[in-house]
């Protein structure tokens, strides 16, 4: 519960660890270690990551966040997204359900080694933050001509 306030995500490109995390959820513990920056599933905001030969795309499902208040930074291949989401607190109202996350969040994503920190673009639409990080030219697959 408390981990959702300050959370880390890592080793995302390691299938083995991803399976380990899922097993962890199923059986409540595994003999093998988790990624050092990995967090439990269910942490706010949820993240999806995709990759193409040209870029890596990170999607943050964070509804109701002021995009200008987000602190997005990239150091080498470590992407850090910090922000705050405040839910409306109505004075004197009776709350029946309070399931939505209220407060600061912090997520760290380990990207592949070949990303270019100088070419990062971020956009926010309908509550989804999309961060696109370009890959370095040298890392792209190339067709080699036979002489």
């Amino acid at each position: 519960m408390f981990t959702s306030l300050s959370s880390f995500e890592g080793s995302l490109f390691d299938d083995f660890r991803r399976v380990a995390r899922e097993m962890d959820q199923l059986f409540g513990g595994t003999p093998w270690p988790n990624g050092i920056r990995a967090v439990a599933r269910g942490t706010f905001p949820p993240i999806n990551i995709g990759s193409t030969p040209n870029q890596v795309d990170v999607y943050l499902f964070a509804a109701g966040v002021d995009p200008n208040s987000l602190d997005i930074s990239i150091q080498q291949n470590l992407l850090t997204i910090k922000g705050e989401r405040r839910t409306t607190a109505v004075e004197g109202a009776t709350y029946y359900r309070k399931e939505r996350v209220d407060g600061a969040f912090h997520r760290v994503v380990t990207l592949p080694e070949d990303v270019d920190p100088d070419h990062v673009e971020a956009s926010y639409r309908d509550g989804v933050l999309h961060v696109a990080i370009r890959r370095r030219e040298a890392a792209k697959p190339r067709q080699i001509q036979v002489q």
Partner: protein
Amino acid sequence: MSEAIEVTTQQPKALQESTEAARVIRPPVDIFEDDAGITVQADLPGVSKERLSVHLDKDSLAIEGTAEIPVPEGMQSVYADIRSTHYQRSFSLSSELDGDQAEATLKDGILTLRIPKRAQYQPRKIEIRVG
């Protein structure tokens, strides 16, 4: 803590679901009541106005939406917390709520639905006149 329990009990079921379409996200909600009515707020990131349906009848409320996230062509999923694009949640209502007067707004993926109480159920202040 209840949230954590819910997640673990739902996980095995979610893994059994073989098709992507069969999975449905149950969006988190806040529900609160004041003297004049009830407010429901739901997190529906990725859902635009066109792809959201709020169905309200005499005794039930159903929220349904589909997230639309443009992705680059040929993208391969590397990691996914969100494994469905379909949101669904419903509630039963009580008779003092006036569904006809309900108002819904969607901003940055948050649905805010305000359902006022019928006039006769709203608390009235009774003035005392000095005779």
